[in-house]
Protein backbone atom coordinates (compact mmCIF):
# COMPACT_ATOMS: atom_id res chain seq x y z
CA UNK A 1 0.00 0.00 0.00
CA UNK A 2 1.37 3.39 -0.92
CA UNK A 3 -1.30 5.41 0.79
CA UNK A 4 -0.42 8.35 3.00
CA UNK A 5 0.19 7.39 6.64
CA UNK A 6 -1.44 9.88 9.06
CA UNK A 7 -0.87 8.01 12.32
CA UNK A 8 2.32 6.10 12.82
CA UNK A 9 3.25 4.40 16.09
CA UNK A 10 6.19 2.22 16.91
CA UNK A 11 6.60 0.42 20.25
CA UNK A 12 4.50 3.13 21.92
CA UNK A 13 4.35 2.52 25.69
CA UNK A 14 2.79 4.21 28.70
CA UNK A 15 3.54 3.17 32.26
CA UNK A 16 1.92 4.46 35.44
CA UNK A 17 4.33 3.40 38.19
CA UNK A 18 4.86 -0.30 37.62
CA UNK A 19 1.59 -0.73 35.73
CA UNK A 20 2.01 -0.83 31.97
CA UNK A 21 -1.22 0.56 30.57
CA UNK A 22 -0.10 0.48 26.96
CA UNK A 23 2.61 -2.02 26.10
CA UNK A 24 4.68 -1.34 22.96
CA UNK A 25 1.92 -0.94 20.40
CA UNK A 26 2.87 -0.43 16.74
CA UNK A 27 0.46 0.37 13.91
CA UNK A 28 -0.19 2.72 11.01
CA UNK A 29 -3.43 4.43 10.06
CA UNK A 30 -3.91 5.67 6.51
CA UNK A 31 -5.53 8.83 5.28
CA UNK A 32 -9.30 8.60 4.84
CA UNK A 33 -9.62 5.40 6.84
CA UNK A 34 -12.09 4.62 9.60
CA UNK A 35 -9.88 2.88 12.10
CA UNK A 36 -11.70 1.02 14.89
CA UNK A 37 -9.85 0.74 18.18
CA UNK A 38 -11.51 -2.05 20.16
CA UNK A 39 -10.86 -3.67 23.50
CA UNK A 40 -12.45 -4.45 26.86
CA UNK A 41 -12.68 -1.80 29.57
CA UNK A 42 -9.21 -1.22 30.99
CA UNK A 43 -7.42 -2.67 27.97
CA UNK A 44 -5.61 0.64 27.46
CA UNK A 45 -7.61 2.20 24.61
CA UNK A 46 -8.20 5.58 26.19
CA UNK A 47 -4.61 5.85 27.41
CA UNK A 48 -3.32 5.10 23.92
CA UNK A 49 -5.68 7.64 22.40
CA UNK A 50 -4.67 10.32 24.91
CA UNK A 51 -1.04 9.83 23.90
CA UNK A 52 -1.92 10.21 20.24
CA UNK A 53 -3.79 13.45 20.97
CA UNK A 54 -0.90 14.98 22.86
CA UNK A 55 -2.79 14.90 26.19
CA UNK A 56 -0.41 12.42 27.74
CA UNK A 57 3.32 12.01 27.19
CA UNK A 58 4.40 8.44 26.27
CA UNK A 59 6.89 6.63 28.51
CA UNK A 60 8.75 5.24 25.51
CA UNK A 61 8.39 4.39 21.85
CA UNK A 62 7.58 6.74 19.00
CA UNK A 63 4.50 8.14 17.37
CA UNK A 64 3.84 10.69 14.65
CA UNK A 65 0.42 12.23 14.13
CA UNK A 66 -0.16 14.04 10.82
CA UNK A 67 3.61 14.03 10.53
CA UNK A 68 4.26 15.62 13.95
CA UNK A 69 6.12 14.05 16.83
CA UNK A 70 4.11 13.33 20.02
CA UNK A 71 6.95 14.36 22.30
CA UNK A 72 8.05 17.64 20.82
CA UNK A 73 5.27 18.89 18.59
CA UNK A 74 2.11 18.37 20.64
CA UNK A 75 0.85 21.89 19.96
CA UNK A 76 1.22 21.35 16.19
CA UNK A 77 -0.60 18.05 16.47
CA UNK A 78 -3.45 19.90 18.18
CA UNK A 79 -3.87 22.16 15.13
CA UNK A 80 -4.53 19.08 12.99
CA UNK A 81 -6.72 16.86 15.11
CA UNK A 82 -10.19 16.87 16.54
CA UNK A 83 -11.04 15.02 19.76
CA UNK A 84 -14.27 13.90 21.32
CA UNK A 85 -13.87 12.39 24.77
CA UNK A 86 -15.90 9.76 26.58
CA UNK A 87 -17.21 12.46 28.86
CA UNK A 88 -19.41 14.97 27.06
CA UNK A 89 -17.23 18.02 26.93
CA UNK A 90 -18.99 20.95 25.36
CA UNK A 91 -19.98 23.77 27.68
CA UNK A 92 -23.41 22.88 29.08
CA UNK A 93 -24.01 26.44 30.23
CA UNK A 94 -23.50 27.87 26.75
CA UNK A 95 -26.04 27.62 23.96
CA UNK A 96 -25.61 25.50 20.83
CA UNK A 97 -24.60 28.55 18.79
CA UNK A 98 -22.22 29.85 21.46
CA UNK A 99 -20.41 26.51 21.67
CA UNK A 100 -19.97 26.40 17.90
CA UNK A 101 -18.68 29.97 17.81
CA UNK A 102 -16.37 29.45 20.78
CA UNK A 103 -14.67 26.31 19.50
CA UNK A 104 -14.60 27.59 15.92
CA UNK A 105 -13.08 30.81 17.22
CA UNK A 106 -10.29 29.24 19.22
CA UNK A 107 -9.39 27.07 16.21
CA UNK A 108 -8.84 30.31 14.34
CA UNK A 109 -11.84 30.39 11.99
CA UNK A 110 -12.52 33.85 10.57
CA UNK A 111 -15.74 35.69 11.43
CA UNK A 112 -17.07 34.95 7.95
CA UNK A 113 -16.21 31.25 8.17
CA UNK A 114 -17.69 31.10 11.67
CA UNK A 115 -20.97 32.51 10.49
CA UNK A 116 -21.23 30.11 7.57
CA UNK A 117 -20.08 27.13 9.61
CA UNK A 118 -22.58 27.84 12.39
CA UNK A 119 -25.43 28.13 9.92
CA UNK A 120 -24.59 24.97 7.98
CA UNK A 121 -23.96 22.96 11.14
CA UNK A 122 -27.17 24.01 12.81
CA UNK A 123 -29.08 23.28 9.58
CA UNK A 124 -27.57 19.85 8.99
CA UNK A 125 -28.05 18.79 12.62
CA UNK A 126 -31.64 20.03 12.57
CA UNK A 127 -30.98 22.24 15.59
CA UNK A 128 -32.46 25.41 14.15
CA UNK A 129 -35.14 25.61 16.82
CA UNK A 130 -32.60 24.92 19.55
CA UNK A 131 -29.70 27.09 18.53
CA UNK A 132 -30.38 29.44 21.42
CA UNK A 133 -31.07 26.79 24.04
CA UNK A 134 -28.42 25.79 26.54
CA UNK A 135 -26.63 22.61 25.57
CA UNK A 136 -27.54 21.18 28.99
CA UNK A 137 -31.17 21.00 27.90
CA UNK A 138 -30.55 18.84 24.80
CA UNK A 139 -31.06 15.05 24.76
CA UNK A 140 -27.84 13.00 24.92
CA UNK A 141 -27.96 11.87 21.30
CA UNK A 142 -28.18 15.45 20.01
CA UNK A 143 -25.38 16.50 22.32
CA UNK A 144 -23.13 13.77 20.93
CA UNK A 145 -23.88 14.73 17.34
CA UNK A 146 -23.16 18.35 18.19
CA UNK A 147 -19.94 17.41 19.98
CA UNK A 148 -18.77 15.49 16.92
CA UNK A 149 -19.58 18.37 14.60
CA UNK A 150 -17.66 20.75 16.86
CA UNK A 151 -14.70 18.34 16.99
CA UNK A 152 -14.38 18.53 13.18
CA UNK A 153 -15.32 22.22 12.85
CA UNK A 154 -11.78 23.15 11.78
CA UNK A 155 -11.57 20.31 9.20
CA UNK A 156 -8.75 18.44 10.96
CA UNK A 157 -6.74 15.68 9.27
CA UNK A 158 -7.72 13.19 11.96
CA UNK A 159 -10.57 13.03 14.44
CA UNK A 160 -10.27 10.90 17.58
CA UNK A 161 -13.55 9.61 18.99
CA UNK A 162 -13.52 7.94 22.40
CA UNK A 163 -16.70 5.84 22.72
CA UNK A 164 -18.75 8.54 21.02
CA UNK A 165 -22.03 6.62 21.02
CA UNK A 166 -22.07 5.28 24.58
CA UNK A 167 -25.66 5.37 25.91
CA UNK A 168 -27.13 6.60 22.63
CA UNK A 169 -30.21 4.96 21.03
CA UNK A 170 -29.80 2.89 17.80
CA UNK A 171 -31.44 5.44 15.51
CA UNK A 172 -29.28 8.28 16.73
CA UNK A 173 -26.23 6.01 16.51
CA UNK A 174 -27.06 5.39 12.87
CA UNK A 175 -27.31 9.18 12.31
CA UNK A 176 -24.04 9.64 14.16
CA UNK A 177 -22.33 7.25 11.76
CA UNK A 178 -23.77 9.19 8.82
CA UNK A 179 -21.91 12.21 10.21
CA UNK A 180 -18.73 10.11 10.41
CA UNK A 181 -19.10 9.01 6.78
CA UNK A 182 -19.64 12.66 5.74
CA UNK A 183 -16.39 13.58 7.51
CA UNK A 184 -14.55 10.73 5.77
CA UNK A 185 -15.89 11.96 2.42
CA UNK A 186 -14.29 15.32 3.20
CA UNK A 187 -10.94 13.52 3.68
CA UNK A 188 -10.90 13.32 7.47
CA UNK A 189 -9.37 10.18 8.97
CA UNK A 190 -11.45 8.71 11.79
CA UNK A 191 -9.93 6.94 14.79
CA UNK A 192 -12.74 5.54 16.92
CA UNK A 193 -13.12 3.36 20.01
CA UNK A 194 -16.37 1.54 20.60
CA UNK A 195 -17.98 -1.32 22.48
CA UNK A 196 -20.70 -1.83 19.87
CA UNK A 197 -19.75 -4.66 17.50
CA UNK A 198 -22.20 -3.52 14.83
CA UNK A 199 -20.23 -0.28 14.75
CA UNK A 200 -17.02 -2.26 14.45
CA UNK A 201 -18.39 -3.66 11.20
CA UNK A 202 -18.56 -0.11 9.80
CA UNK A 203 -14.78 0.35 10.18
CA UNK A 204 -12.28 -0.22 7.38
CA UNK A 205 -9.83 -1.78 9.77
CA UNK A 206 -9.92 -2.80 13.39
CA UNK A 207 -7.32 -3.30 16.07
CA UNK A 208 -8.18 -5.34 19.17
CA UNK A 209 -6.37 -4.38 22.34
CA UNK A 210 -5.99 -6.92 25.12
CA UNK A 211 -4.01 -6.13 28.29
CA UNK A 212 -2.25 -3.15 26.73
CA UNK A 213 -1.07 -4.93 23.57
CA UNK A 214 -2.63 -5.18 20.13
CA UNK A 215 -3.82 -8.79 19.88
CA UNK A 216 -5.19 -8.60 16.32
CA UNK A 217 -5.47 -6.03 13.55
CA UNK A 218 -7.18 -6.35 10.17
CA UNK A 219 -10.39 -5.58 8.33
CA UNK A 220 -13.57 -6.91 10.01
CA UNK A 221 -14.03 -9.45 7.19
CA UNK A 222 -10.50 -10.83 7.45
CA UNK A 223 -10.72 -10.98 11.25
CA UNK A 224 -13.85 -13.11 11.07
CA UNK A 225 -12.10 -15.51 8.69
CA UNK A 226 -8.96 -15.56 10.79
CA UNK A 227 -10.84 -16.40 13.99
CA UNK A 228 -13.32 -18.60 12.18
CA UNK A 229 -16.16 -16.57 13.67
CA UNK A 230 -19.63 -15.74 12.42
CA UNK A 231 -19.65 -12.19 13.76
CA UNK A 232 -17.40 -9.55 15.26
CA UNK A 233 -19.03 -10.36 18.61
CA UNK A 234 -17.43 -13.81 18.49
CA UNK A 235 -14.04 -12.37 17.50
CA UNK A 236 -14.26 -10.01 20.46
CA UNK A 237 -15.17 -12.80 22.92
CA UNK A 238 -12.37 -15.01 21.61
CA UNK A 239 -9.75 -12.35 22.16
CA UNK A 240 -11.05 -10.60 25.28
CA UNK A 241 -11.50 -13.90 27.17
CA UNK A 242 -7.74 -14.33 27.14
CA UNK A 243 -7.29 -11.09 29.09
CA UNK A 244 -5.67 -11.44 32.51
CA UNK A 245 -6.11 -7.84 33.61
CA UNK A 246 -9.84 -7.29 33.88
Amino acid sequence: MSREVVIHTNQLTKQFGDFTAVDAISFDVYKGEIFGFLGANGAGKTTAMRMLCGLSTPTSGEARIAGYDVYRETEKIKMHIGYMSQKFSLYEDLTVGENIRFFGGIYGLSDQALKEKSRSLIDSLGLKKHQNSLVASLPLGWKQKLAFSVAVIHEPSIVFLDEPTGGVDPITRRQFWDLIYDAVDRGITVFVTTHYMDEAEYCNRISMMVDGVIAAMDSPGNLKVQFNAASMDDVFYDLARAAKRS
Partner: protein
Amino acid sequence: MRTLKFLLIKEFKQIFRNKALLPMIFALPIIQLLIIPLAADYEIKNINIAVVDHDHSGYAADLIAKITASGYFRLLDYSDSFESAYRQMEADEADLILEIPQDFEKELVITGQQKVFIAVNAINGVKGSLGSNYLNNIISDFNQGITAELMQASSAGPMKKIEITSLNWYNPYLNYQVFMVPGILVLLVTMVGAYMCSLNIVKEKEVGTIEQINVTPIRKHHYILGKLIPFWIIGMFLFTVGFFVIARLVYGIIPLGNLFVLYGFLALYLIAMLGFGLLISTYSQTQQQAMSVVFFFMMIFVLMSGLFTSIDSMPDWAQLVAYCNPATYFIEVMRMVVLKGSQLSDIRLHFAVVTGFALLFNSWAIINYRKTS
Protein backbone atom coordinates in the same frame (compact mmCIF):
# COMPACT_ATOMS: atom_id res chain seq x y z
CA MET B 1 -5.56 38.13 20.75
CA ARG B 2 -8.46 36.69 18.81
CA THR B 3 -8.34 33.55 20.91
CA LEU B 4 -8.40 35.67 24.04
CA LYS B 5 -11.48 37.50 22.80
CA PHE B 6 -13.36 34.22 22.38
CA LEU B 7 -12.21 33.02 25.80
CA LEU B 8 -13.35 36.22 27.49
CA ILE B 9 -16.76 36.17 25.81
CA LYS B 10 -17.25 32.59 26.95
CA GLU B 11 -16.08 33.29 30.49
CA PHE B 12 -18.33 36.31 31.02
CA LYS B 13 -21.34 34.49 29.60
CA GLN B 14 -20.74 31.60 31.97
CA ILE B 15 -20.22 33.83 35.00
CA PHE B 16 -23.37 35.84 34.39
CA ARG B 17 -25.35 32.68 33.72
CA ASN B 18 -24.30 30.99 36.92
CA LYS B 19 -27.25 31.50 39.21
CA ALA B 20 -25.43 30.17 42.25
CA LEU B 21 -22.24 32.14 41.80
CA LEU B 22 -23.66 35.50 40.87
CA PRO B 23 -25.32 36.34 44.20
CA MET B 24 -22.21 35.09 45.93
CA ILE B 25 -20.09 37.48 43.94
CA PHE B 26 -22.26 40.54 44.33
CA ALA B 27 -24.59 40.29 47.30
CA LEU B 28 -22.53 38.46 49.90
CA PRO B 29 -19.63 40.91 49.98
CA ILE B 30 -21.97 43.83 50.42
CA ILE B 31 -23.87 42.13 53.20
CA GLN B 32 -20.61 41.22 54.88
CA LEU B 33 -19.39 44.76 54.61
CA LEU B 34 -22.56 45.93 56.32
CA ILE B 35 -22.48 43.39 59.14
CA ILE B 36 -18.91 42.49 60.07
CA PRO B 37 -17.77 46.01 61.02
CA LEU B 38 -20.61 46.25 63.52
CA ALA B 39 -19.55 43.02 65.20
CA ALA B 40 -15.81 43.68 65.03
CA ASP B 41 -16.03 46.60 67.42
CA TYR B 42 -13.70 46.64 70.38
CA GLU B 43 -15.28 49.47 72.24
CA ILE B 44 -16.57 47.93 75.43
CA LYS B 45 -19.92 49.06 76.65
CA ASN B 46 -22.55 47.55 78.91
CA ILE B 47 -20.14 46.28 81.54
CA ASN B 48 -22.25 44.71 84.25
CA ILE B 49 -21.25 45.90 87.66
CA ALA B 50 -22.41 44.65 91.04
CA VAL B 51 -21.98 47.13 93.85
CA VAL B 52 -21.66 46.03 97.44
CA ASP B 53 -22.28 49.03 99.65
CA HIS B 54 -21.57 48.66 103.36
CA ASP B 55 -21.67 52.38 103.97
CA HIS B 56 -24.89 53.81 102.53
CA SER B 57 -23.48 57.32 102.82
CA GLY B 58 -23.82 60.37 100.55
CA TYR B 59 -20.31 59.88 99.11
CA ALA B 60 -21.00 56.26 98.31
CA ALA B 61 -24.17 57.26 96.50
CA ASP B 62 -22.22 59.98 94.61
CA LEU B 63 -19.62 57.47 93.51
CA ILE B 64 -22.23 55.00 92.28
CA ALA B 65 -24.07 57.74 90.43
CA LYS B 66 -20.84 58.79 88.75
CA ILE B 67 -20.14 55.23 87.64
CA THR B 68 -23.54 54.61 86.17
CA ALA B 69 -23.59 58.03 84.53
CA SER B 70 -20.39 57.24 82.61
CA GLY B 71 -22.32 55.19 80.07
CA TYR B 72 -19.97 52.23 80.21
CA PHE B 73 -21.50 50.43 83.15
CA ARG B 74 -24.81 48.89 83.92
CA LEU B 75 -25.70 48.60 87.58
CA LEU B 76 -26.65 44.98 87.82
CA ASP B 77 -26.99 44.59 91.55
CA TYR B 78 -26.85 46.83 94.57
CA SER B 79 -26.67 45.13 97.93
CA ASP B 80 -24.75 45.07 101.18
CA SER B 81 -23.56 41.51 100.97
CA PHE B 82 -20.46 40.48 99.07
CA GLU B 83 -21.87 36.96 98.85
CA SER B 84 -24.74 38.06 96.71
CA ALA B 85 -22.45 39.97 94.33
CA TYR B 86 -20.05 37.04 94.15
CA ARG B 87 -22.86 34.70 93.19
CA GLN B 88 -23.67 37.04 90.31
CA MET B 89 -20.11 36.85 89.13
CA GLU B 90 -20.07 33.07 89.44
CA ALA B 91 -23.17 32.96 87.27
CA ASP B 92 -21.20 35.04 84.77
CA GLU B 93 -23.69 37.86 85.01
CA ALA B 94 -21.46 40.42 86.70
CA ASP B 95 -18.21 41.50 85.09
CA LEU B 96 -17.03 43.63 87.97
CA ILE B 97 -17.71 43.91 91.69
CA LEU B 98 -17.13 47.14 93.53
CA GLU B 99 -17.10 46.89 97.29
CA ILE B 100 -17.47 50.08 99.30
CA PRO B 101 -16.39 49.52 102.91
CA GLN B 102 -18.19 50.61 106.03
CA ASP B 103 -17.39 54.12 107.22
CA PHE B 104 -16.28 55.03 103.69
CA GLU B 105 -17.40 58.63 104.00
CA LYS B 106 -16.34 59.07 107.61
CA GLU B 107 -12.79 57.80 107.10
CA LEU B 108 -12.46 59.79 103.91
CA VAL B 109 -13.37 63.03 105.60
CA ILE B 110 -11.32 62.42 108.75
CA THR B 111 -8.16 60.77 107.45
CA GLY B 112 -8.42 61.67 103.75
CA GLN B 113 -7.79 58.06 102.88
CA GLN B 114 -10.01 55.21 101.96
CA LYS B 115 -9.89 51.96 100.08
CA VAL B 116 -12.44 50.39 97.78
CA PHE B 117 -12.21 46.87 96.50
CA ILE B 118 -12.67 45.86 92.87
CA ALA B 119 -13.03 42.25 91.77
CA VAL B 120 -12.77 41.53 88.04
CA ASN B 121 -14.27 38.65 86.11
CA ALA B 122 -11.35 38.05 83.80
CA ILE B 123 -12.87 35.30 81.65
CA ASN B 124 -13.49 37.85 78.95
CA GLY B 125 -10.07 39.42 79.34
CA VAL B 126 -10.68 42.46 77.21
CA LYS B 127 -13.93 43.33 78.91
CA GLY B 128 -12.50 42.71 82.36
CA SER B 129 -9.33 44.74 81.99
CA LEU B 130 -10.91 47.61 80.08
CA GLY B 131 -13.74 47.64 82.60
CA SER B 132 -11.44 47.88 85.57
CA ASN B 133 -9.47 50.62 83.79
CA TYR B 134 -12.57 52.65 83.21
CA LEU B 135 -13.61 52.11 86.80
CA ASN B 136 -10.18 53.17 88.09
CA ASN B 137 -10.35 56.35 86.06
CA ILE B 138 -13.77 57.16 87.38
CA ILE B 139 -12.74 56.52 90.96
CA SER B 140 -9.60 58.61 90.72
CA ASP B 141 -11.61 61.38 89.12
CA PHE B 142 -14.09 61.13 91.94
CA ASN B 143 -11.21 61.14 94.36
CA GLN B 144 -9.81 64.37 92.96
CA GLY B 145 -13.19 65.98 93.08
CA ILE B 146 -13.53 65.15 96.75
CA THR B 147 -10.02 66.20 97.63
CA ALA B 148 -10.52 69.52 95.93
CA GLU B 149 -13.78 69.98 97.74
CA LEU B 150 -12.31 69.15 101.13
CA MET B 151 -9.30 71.35 100.58
CA GLN B 152 -11.45 74.26 99.62
CA ALA B 153 -13.43 73.69 102.75
CA SER B 154 -10.27 73.88 104.83
CA SER B 155 -9.09 76.75 102.57
CA ALA B 156 -5.68 75.27 102.09
CA GLY B 157 -3.34 76.21 99.19
CA PRO B 158 -4.07 75.16 95.60
CA MET B 159 -3.53 71.53 94.80
CA LYS B 160 -0.65 70.58 92.51
CA LYS B 161 -1.45 68.07 89.91
CA ILE B 162 -0.41 67.03 86.43
CA GLU B 163 -3.17 66.40 83.99
CA ILE B 164 -2.59 64.47 80.78
CA THR B 165 -4.52 65.46 77.71
CA SER B 166 -4.21 63.33 74.62
CA LEU B 167 -5.23 63.79 71.00
CA ASN B 168 -6.02 60.92 68.67
CA TRP B 169 -4.62 61.43 65.22
CA TYR B 170 -6.14 59.98 62.00
CA ASN B 171 -9.15 58.47 63.70
CA PRO B 172 -10.04 61.21 66.14
CA TYR B 173 -13.03 59.54 67.73
CA LEU B 174 -11.36 56.15 67.98
CA ASN B 175 -14.15 54.80 65.82
CA TYR B 176 -13.52 51.12 65.19
CA GLN B 177 -15.59 51.03 62.03
CA VAL B 178 -13.29 53.54 60.41
CA PHE B 179 -10.46 51.19 61.27
CA MET B 180 -12.19 47.94 60.27
CA VAL B 181 -14.06 48.76 57.06
CA PRO B 182 -10.97 49.34 54.88
CA GLY B 183 -9.52 46.09 56.17
CA ILE B 184 -12.68 44.10 55.50
CA LEU B 185 -12.73 45.41 51.94
CA VAL B 186 -9.34 43.78 51.53
CA LEU B 187 -10.77 40.46 52.69
CA LEU B 188 -13.54 40.68 50.13
CA VAL B 189 -11.23 41.15 47.17
CA THR B 190 -9.02 38.40 48.56
CA MET B 191 -11.99 36.04 48.53
CA VAL B 192 -12.88 36.92 44.96
CA GLY B 193 -9.35 36.24 43.87
CA ALA B 194 -8.68 33.06 45.73
CA TYR B 195 -12.13 31.40 45.74
CA MET B 196 -13.79 32.44 42.53
CA CYS B 197 -10.77 31.96 40.35
CA SER B 198 -9.69 28.58 41.69
CA LEU B 199 -13.21 27.15 41.83
CA ASN B 200 -13.93 28.25 38.28
CA ILE B 201 -10.90 26.46 36.86
CA VAL B 202 -11.34 23.32 38.95
CA LYS B 203 -14.96 23.15 37.83
CA GLU B 204 -13.75 22.81 34.25
CA LYS B 205 -11.55 19.94 35.39
CA GLU B 206 -14.48 18.26 37.13
CA VAL B 207 -16.86 18.59 34.20
CA GLY B 208 -14.18 17.52 31.76
CA THR B 209 -14.31 20.56 29.49
CA ILE B 210 -10.69 21.36 30.30
CA GLU B 211 -9.69 18.24 28.38
CA GLN B 212 -11.47 19.56 25.30
CA ILE B 213 -9.53 22.81 25.76
CA ASN B 214 -6.28 20.91 26.17
CA VAL B 215 -6.61 19.20 22.77
CA THR B 216 -7.06 22.57 21.07
CA PRO B 217 -4.09 24.72 20.07
CA ILE B 218 -5.02 27.34 22.73
CA ARG B 219 -1.85 28.69 24.25
CA LYS B 220 -1.41 28.21 27.97
CA HIS B 221 -1.06 31.93 28.68
CA HIS B 222 -4.16 32.75 26.64
CA TYR B 223 -6.23 30.30 28.61
CA ILE B 224 -4.89 31.61 31.91
CA LEU B 225 -5.44 35.24 30.92
CA GLY B 226 -8.94 34.29 29.85
CA LYS B 227 -9.55 33.11 33.41
CA LEU B 228 -7.76 35.92 35.25
CA ILE B 229 -9.10 38.97 33.41
CA PRO B 230 -12.82 38.45 34.20
CA PHE B 231 -12.18 37.97 37.91
CA TRP B 232 -9.77 40.88 37.94
CA ILE B 233 -12.52 43.08 36.55
CA ILE B 234 -15.05 41.70 39.04
CA GLY B 235 -12.60 42.33 41.89
CA MET B 236 -12.06 45.95 40.81
CA PHE B 237 -15.80 46.43 40.46
CA LEU B 238 -16.60 44.97 43.88
CA PHE B 239 -13.96 47.07 45.56
CA THR B 240 -15.34 50.19 43.91
CA VAL B 241 -18.86 49.40 45.07
CA GLY B 242 -17.68 48.63 48.58
CA PHE B 243 -15.48 51.67 48.74
CA PHE B 244 -17.64 54.37 47.23
CA VAL B 245 -21.09 53.12 48.10
CA ILE B 246 -20.85 51.26 51.39
CA ALA B 247 -17.77 52.73 53.03
CA ARG B 248 -18.65 56.29 52.05
CA LEU B 249 -22.41 56.35 52.40
CA VAL B 250 -22.85 53.97 55.31
CA TYR B 251 -19.70 54.56 57.32
CA GLY B 252 -18.80 58.03 56.09
CA ILE B 253 -15.22 57.05 55.26
CA ILE B 254 -13.69 59.48 52.82
CA PRO B 255 -10.20 58.54 51.69
CA LEU B 256 -7.52 61.07 52.54
CA GLY B 257 -4.88 59.68 50.19
CA ASN B 258 -4.51 59.46 46.46
CA LEU B 259 -7.03 57.17 44.76
CA PHE B 260 -4.65 56.33 41.92
CA VAL B 261 -2.15 54.99 44.41
CA LEU B 262 -4.88 52.95 46.07
CA TYR B 263 -6.23 51.53 42.81
CA GLY B 264 -2.74 50.86 41.53
CA PHE B 265 -2.09 48.78 44.60
CA LEU B 266 -5.48 47.05 44.33
CA ALA B 267 -4.79 46.11 40.70
CA LEU B 268 -1.49 44.55 41.65
CA TYR B 269 -2.89 42.84 44.72
CA LEU B 270 -5.68 41.28 42.68
CA ILE B 271 -3.15 39.88 40.22
CA ALA B 272 -1.31 38.30 43.15
CA MET B 273 -4.46 36.79 44.66
CA LEU B 274 -5.76 35.52 41.30
CA GLY B 275 -2.37 33.91 40.78
CA PHE B 276 -2.80 32.29 44.17
CA GLY B 277 -6.21 30.92 43.18
CA LEU B 278 -4.79 29.70 39.90
CA LEU B 279 -1.94 27.98 41.71
CA ILE B 280 -4.37 26.14 44.00
CA SER B 281 -6.45 25.08 41.00
CA THR B 282 -3.42 23.48 39.36
CA TYR B 283 -3.03 21.24 42.40
CA SER B 284 -6.72 20.39 42.91
CA GLN B 285 -8.78 17.86 41.02
CA THR B 286 -12.15 18.63 42.59
CA GLN B 287 -13.92 21.76 43.76
CA GLN B 288 -14.06 20.29 47.28
CA GLN B 289 -10.30 19.99 47.38
CA ALA B 290 -9.82 23.51 46.12
CA MET B 291 -12.40 24.80 48.59
CA SER B 292 -10.72 23.22 51.62
CA VAL B 293 -7.27 24.38 50.63
CA VAL B 294 -8.44 27.93 49.98
CA PHE B 295 -10.38 27.89 53.25
CA PHE B 296 -7.24 26.90 55.14
CA PHE B 297 -5.32 29.80 53.66
CA MET B 298 -8.22 32.23 54.08
CA MET B 299 -8.18 31.58 57.83
CA ILE B 300 -4.51 32.51 57.92
CA PHE B 301 -5.08 35.50 55.67
CA VAL B 302 -7.87 36.75 57.92
CA LEU B 303 -6.48 36.04 61.36
CA MET B 304 -2.80 36.73 60.74
CA SER B 305 -3.03 39.92 58.78
CA GLY B 306 -3.34 42.51 61.50
CA LEU B 307 -6.99 42.99 60.61
CA PHE B 308 -8.40 42.14 64.03
CA THR B 309 -5.32 42.01 66.22
CA SER B 310 -2.15 44.02 66.13
CA ILE B 311 0.79 42.27 64.47
CA ASP B 312 3.22 43.95 66.88
CA SER B 313 1.74 42.04 69.78
CA MET B 314 2.04 38.64 68.09
CA PRO B 315 4.89 36.30 69.04
CA ASP B 316 7.90 36.40 66.70
CA TRP B 317 6.98 33.32 64.69
CA ALA B 318 3.48 34.63 64.13
CA GLN B 319 4.84 37.98 63.00
CA LEU B 320 6.90 36.09 60.46
CA VAL B 321 3.76 34.37 59.16
CA ALA B 322 1.93 37.69 59.09
CA TYR B 323 4.64 39.25 56.95
CA CYS B 324 4.48 36.31 54.51
CA ASN B 325 0.78 37.06 54.10
CA PRO B 326 -0.15 39.25 51.12
CA ALA B 327 -3.32 40.47 52.86
CA THR B 328 -1.20 42.06 55.62
CA TYR B 329 0.31 44.47 53.13
CA PHE B 330 -2.92 45.51 51.51
CA ILE B 331 -4.62 46.05 54.87
CA GLU B 332 -1.74 48.26 55.94
CA VAL B 333 -1.86 50.15 52.66
CA MET B 334 -5.62 50.64 52.95
CA ARG B 335 -5.34 52.03 56.46
CA MET B 336 -2.36 54.20 55.58
CA VAL B 337 -3.75 55.64 52.37
CA VAL B 338 -7.38 55.90 53.39
CA LEU B 339 -7.00 57.07 56.99
CA LYS B 340 -3.60 58.78 57.03
CA GLY B 341 -3.36 59.96 53.44
CA SER B 342 -0.01 58.25 52.93
CA GLN B 343 1.76 58.87 49.64
CA LEU B 344 3.25 56.49 47.12
CA SER B 345 6.68 57.00 48.70
CA ASP B 346 5.36 55.75 52.06
CA ILE B 347 4.20 52.44 50.62
CA ARG B 348 7.04 51.66 48.23
CA LEU B 349 7.97 48.60 50.24
CA HIS B 350 4.40 47.33 50.12
CA PHE B 351 4.33 47.73 46.35
CA ALA B 352 7.57 45.81 46.03
CA VAL B 353 6.40 42.95 48.22
CA VAL B 354 3.05 42.52 46.48
CA THR B 355 4.74 42.64 43.07
CA GLY B 356 6.92 39.83 44.36
CA PHE B 357 3.87 37.81 45.42
CA ALA B 358 2.18 38.39 42.06
CA LEU B 359 5.24 37.18 40.17
CA LEU B 360 5.77 34.21 42.46
CA PHE B 361 2.19 32.90 42.43
CA ASN B 362 1.59 33.44 38.73
CA SER B 363 4.82 32.00 37.43
CA TRP B 364 4.55 29.02 39.76
CA ALA B 365 0.98 28.43 38.55
CA ILE B 366 1.89 28.78 34.88
CA ILE B 367 4.76 26.34 35.25
CA ASN B 368 2.53 23.92 37.09
CA TYR B 369 -0.39 24.18 34.66
CA ARG B 370 0.05 21.49 32.06
CA LYS B 371 -1.89 20.78 28.93
CA THR B 372 -0.10 17.41 28.71
CA SER B 373 0.21 15.03 31.65
